[in-house]
């Protein structure tokens, strides 16, 4: 069974989320305070965290940073604010995805959760290389010169998506559908923030990226490093 930790201070909403998720065959751990998250997290590590931004005790952004500091578990933020600053803050704190309340349909939430839990790229086998990075898709590992680089699941998926079709230019919309499972979204902030985070981990110089290259006015592609 998959376990999702739901962190929300609104009892009714938390209960409703529980009902919907349980109905979809997902186990749920309910937490109502920000400062209680880490204890529950340690005792019963979830497969995914559904995290509200405004929480008593410790706010969602801080909780997100704490989780990220020790785990690569997928985090989906729940926010009552659609304002860019809040969304970007959550993504920068390490969230993989976010959903703005109220969600269109509960099914949308479940689809989003499943996308994050799904073993993406299961079809891709063996080793991929991008620049001077070696990617073991099955083992979910990225290494440079034998040295492991820790990536979140989402960052890994993003890197693999680019690496498996070297030279193809991905529009932001294409990446949104490929990596996030959005069918029809124009929210390019998600892509921009995650590309930045990914670059900060894998590029030699994030200011002059060579692995994830921007194609102006279009999107991104896997870079071909000179000599490698």
């Amino acid at each position, binding site marked *: 069974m998959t376990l999702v930790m739901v962190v929300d201070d*609104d009892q*009714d*909403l938390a209960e*409703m*989320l529980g*009902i*919907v998720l349980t*109905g979809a065959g997902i186990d749920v751990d309910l937490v109502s305070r920000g400062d209680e998250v880490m204890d529950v997290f340690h005792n019963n590590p979830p497969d995914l965290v559904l995290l509200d931004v405004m929480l008593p005790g410790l706010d969602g952004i801080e909780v997100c940073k704490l989780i990220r500091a020790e785990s690569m578990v997928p985090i989906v933020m729940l926010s*009552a*604010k659609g304002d*860019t600053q809040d969304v970007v803050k959550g993504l920068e704190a390490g969230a993989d995805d976010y959903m703005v*309340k*109220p*969600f269109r*349909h*509960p*099914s949308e939430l479940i689809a989003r959760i499943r996308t994050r839990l799904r073993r993406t790229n299961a079809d891709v086998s063996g080793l991929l290389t991008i620049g001077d990075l070696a990617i073991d898709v099955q083992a979910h590992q990225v290494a440079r010169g034998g040295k492991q680089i820790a990536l979140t699941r989402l960052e890994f998926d993003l890197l693999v998506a680019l690496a498996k079709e070297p030279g193809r230019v991905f529009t932001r919309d294409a990446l949104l559908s490929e990596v996030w499972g959005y069918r029809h979204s*124009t929210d*390019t*902030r998600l892509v921009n923030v995650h590309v930045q985070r990914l670059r900060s981990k894998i590029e030699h110089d994030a200011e002059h990226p060579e692995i994830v290259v921007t194609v102006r*006015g279009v999107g991104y592609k896997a870079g071909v490093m000179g000599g490698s």
Partner: protein
Amino acid sequence: MGAAGSALNSQLSAGIKEVNLNTALIEARSTIFTAEYRFLLAQGEKDSVVQKVVDDVISSATTLSANENAREVVFKRSPGNTRENNYEIASNLLDPTSIPATLSERVRKTPDLVYQYTNMNYLTGTRVQGLAIGQKVQIPNAGQYEMYIIFSLANQGKTLDLISRSFFLTGFLLLFLVGLITWLVVRQVVKPVREAAAIATEFTAGDFGKRLKVESQDEISTLGLAFNEMAESIEKQIARLENLSRVQQRFVSDVSHELRTPLTTLRMASEVIHSSKDGFDPIVERSAELLVAQLDRFERLLEDLLEVSRFDAEVAVLEAVDFDIVLLVQRCADDLGLVAKERKTQIYVNSTEPVIMIKADIRRVERILRNLLSNAIDHAEEMQIDVHIVASEHDVAVGVRDYGVGLDENALTRVFDRFWRADPSRARTRGGTGLGLSIALEDARLHNGELEAWGRPGRGAHFVVTLPRNTWERIDQRLIPLQPEDYKA
């Protein structure tokens, strides 16, 4: 002042001339009287004695005390005097022609004193202004002569020069003083007034922190203090109003946010109910459907309210990206295709170019387009909807034309007002929020663009949005005429 000065000057010099004339006349009278008396006494004497008397008369008349003007004496024989002895003489080398002929004529006609201004020409070449006074005299053994005394007016000229020079000097001094006083007045009065005007201008421009400097203790400072008090009061009022509207906007925004959490729960609950509605009683089933539909509507209203509160608080932010507006229009038209079909209308999109790239906030542009299209569908009355896209180098325009109910004059002025409905009696079948067009207008303006409406009752409506292709610029021209080309009045 110059005129007054010169009038005074000429009056004064006239006075001086008159005094000089009178003095000269008195002197001349007494001299001539003395001469006549002495000639009378010399009656019957020898010629040598008479000659001596003449010499004496001349010397006593021309001997000057200090500060006295020069005087000369001239004896002329009267015409018709044919006596042998000749005493014609002019003192001190004065040219006898200095006596004007006109004066001589008058002397001959009257026994009285006669005078005339003239120039005194000396044989040495000197020439001064003078006053000639003459009278007939009888010289013993020599008959009738004309005796003239000529007073030099050289000193008088000097005096007049001095006076007019002092006048000029005084004039200049006065002018300077007037200038100085004017300057002081300007400094004391005009400068603070000008400052007040400048500060009032800044006030109008929105800088409410400006105050006048009050340094002195006069009427001007009273004005300054009153002005500052007014400024203070205005600033307070504005701050109060700003705070009030901030609080209100904050409240709207908070309410919208606070409503989201229960709304999320409601939505999920209604979806759970709705998804299992098939087993329900038809009444419950229909109720579940209505619940879901109304929650949708409630949510749209909430979104719109939140957006409006962002515009009001001026915190709406543009997130510009490059995209193809033709594709976006096509996508919106496709998305609304089903709704259009339900209302028995169809949307036709045509563009002058297959691809028009613009840099703008795609979310907002999409919202403008959806609002215009939804509005057109609502009012199309089963007639088609035409969408035109026209681009220039600099701008892009999208026109949405329907041929339905249209808008009258009054409706046109209010169509962008919040919660305004064209016809209150019309059923709100589509469940729009009533905020769509007003948000669309704000979205267009945020892009430095414009959204305009045209309509005639029964002849449909035409909404045209014009945007700069690069959002930071301003639109140059309207690419689509607001009055549709197909419309004939």
